[in-house]
């Protein structure tokens, strides 16, 4: 995998990231604990008062929004650095910035596909050599060019719009659970063709960031509520997520077993669907409805 050429950015970035879930919640015990306590207390209160959907999910959703905003903003910042590096003809710097911009983006896919499909399409179009991340990727990593000012400006416009949108769009637990389920399924898709970011060789980074995004949303919004209602299912879900994290924590894509990965993602989806009925949410379908 040629992302090794770029100093294994995924590892570096994960260590630097304040918000990566796997390390994030444990790295910031106060934030994590506070939110978990809040969720637990509110959850218990509501379960006692009104069996059914707990307001704690809605609180979790707002906690998640803070992480989402941070991820999107970080992507925007990296994309600006991509623009500046490219303008300065700094090929290595531009590549690094592109890779970093993908981190927050891929983590946010829990949200983007379902809530803002049009932005999703413009930012992450495939296969399209004109707009979005992958148009830039082809020129930057394939042709070693930095002449993509129009493309990067277009990307920045859409990311800025996304950054505004995530601050005030109405988020729902149902919508985000749908997003978690859909992204989990997607992680299990075949990458035998090199995957989404095949030109830069960073498809495995995308997958790791997807899994981080899944864990972030699940733990922030749903985990404590699931644990409170069905400890066994909660433990099973966390085990599935941990298993996925281990599977994608490999030096390169060729070391990821595609069949095991597919099975693991599908089993995770089944458990998430069980969790939906436990939380009295609708069973998530695997595609959004067309608008």
């Amino acid at each position: 995998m040629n992302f090794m050429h770029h100093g294994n950015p995924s590892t570096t970035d994960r260590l630097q990231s304040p918000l990566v879930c796997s390390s994030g919640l444990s790295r910031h015990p106060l934030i994590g604990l506070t939110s978990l306590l809040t969720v637990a207390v509110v959850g218990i209160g509501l379960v006692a008062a009104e069996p059914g959907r707990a307001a704690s999910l809605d609180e979790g959703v707002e906690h998640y929004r803070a992480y989402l905003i941070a991820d999107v903003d970080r992507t925007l910042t990296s994309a600006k650095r991509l623009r500046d590096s490219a303008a300065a003809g700094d090929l290595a710097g531009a590549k690094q910035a592109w890779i970093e911009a993908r981190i927050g983006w891929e983590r946010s896919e829990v949200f983007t596909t379902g809530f803002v499909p049009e932005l999703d399409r413009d930012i992450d179009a495939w296969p399209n050599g004109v707009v979005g991340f992958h148009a830039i990727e082809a020129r930057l990593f394939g042709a070693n060019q930095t002449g993509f000012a129009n493309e990067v400006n277009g990307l920045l416009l859409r990311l800025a719009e996304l950054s505004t949108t995530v601050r005030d769009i109405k988020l729902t637990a149902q919508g985000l659970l749908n997003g978690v389920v859909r992204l989990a399924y997607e992680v299990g898709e075949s990458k035998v063709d090199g995957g989404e970011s095949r030109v830069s060789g960073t498809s495995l980074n995308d997958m790791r960031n997807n899994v981080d995004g899944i864990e972030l949303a699940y733990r922030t919004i749903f985990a404590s509520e699931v644990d409170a209602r069905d400890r066994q299912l909660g433990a099973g879900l966390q085990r599935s997520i941990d298993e996925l994290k281990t599977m994608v924590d490999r030096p390169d894509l060729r070391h990821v077993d595609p069949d095991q990965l597919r099975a693991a993602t599908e089993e995770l989806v089944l458990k998430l669907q069980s969790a939906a009925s436990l939380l009295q949410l609708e069973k998530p379908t695997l595609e959004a409805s067309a608008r």
Partner: protein
Amino acid sequence: MRRGTICAIILLLLSALLHDANAFPLSSGDHTVLPPGTELNEESLDRPREVFRSEAVGGAKSYLVNLGDLAFNSNDILGDPARRAGMSCGTCHVNGAGNGRLYVPGMSTRPGNFDTTGPLFNPKAHNGARDPVRIPSLRGARFLAPYGNDGRTSSLRDFVRNVIVNEFAGPEPSPAILDALVAYIEDIDFLPNLNLATGGRLTARAGAAARRGEVLFSKPFPQDPQLSCAACHIRSSGFVDHRQHSVGSGGLFKTPTLLNANFNAPYFHDGRYDSYDQVVAHFDRAFELGLSLQDRADLVAYLAAIGDGLQPYERDGVTAQLKEINDFASVLNIAIPADDTAVIALAVHTVGRELRELVEQFPSLKDTTVEGGSAERLNARKELKNLVLMVRRIGVAAAAGHFDEAAAEYQNYRKLTFAAVPIVLKTAEPWSLFNPAVHNAHFAELRQLLQSAQKLPR
């Protein structure tokens, strides 16, 4: 499933594995070229038509045949390098036919051949020589013993086992799976050929040139009157004699059938010739036949007449795909009540994988090359993904010993795939990659993206 396209994808992967550990499959270095033989074209929408003997005689494929077809198209029975690349027997023998387009860099010297003793799939079988062999069609294989280009193995079962275990480093297949694979292969018939009558003679449908060729075909070779084309390619016997001969191609090789051979190029054991012209010229040269240009043309016309087949290709689409997947899944009718966890696991693995591939024929909204049909596409994707999950649920239940639960879920699956899902998919088909216009637009865009990755190399 979509094997033409899938093949191209596999080749990309394999080329990366072989040539440049850092290229996957395009690198930021110098190796940014698609390997030769990679097909992203509309013709990959055509797939060889598969004729089953059991169906041709008015019956239905047995459980054994369906299980064999399932195993044949499962990457799970091969060794790790092939499995991870998503390869199955069906990658090379598409619908039981050959695959003249398959090209694996380092393992092929031209599209349509493949080195079964190369380094990639089983280092233990690597012989250090670049000696690829043609990928044969399996149509009519039950009439064509012995097996292998050199006819080294008399039993099809032994041959199949050798392919799995030694050529592709797969785990030892169970006797039941081997039996099923043999049953499947032996059920694949030749395509009917209206040019041929009883005993392999030409019918009135064949033209004058083919008739002249038929006479030449039986004419004794001038330098060795005991020989003729027909002496080895025995007309009444599937155009084979079940024996090996030296024909000036570097050793002893078994007589290949000429039935349906129009669709089996390239020719000779190593696939060195693209056309009948070249084949006839070879024999003219090697056996000093002294053929005139007219003779050669007549022989070629004869080969084309006897090598023909009715409807050799069919357009890939929702109906063909669903039928195949349902045939695979049908083994669960017997495997679940029998608590046959091995077969259930194989079916879950393979059917789930095929369904996932079928999802990708309906482009998501991120695919900017497709206009319209958003609701239809999303609906198709949603229903198919739902089936993927149902299949997984069957697997999870069976693995936990809950066979009743698995049976109930399979009934749900069958209900959906009987009517509801086909309707949803047919509705979305105009916006799917099965539509040549959509297919071409999608792959043109992909090609353009990859080309923009190749401008101005460092």
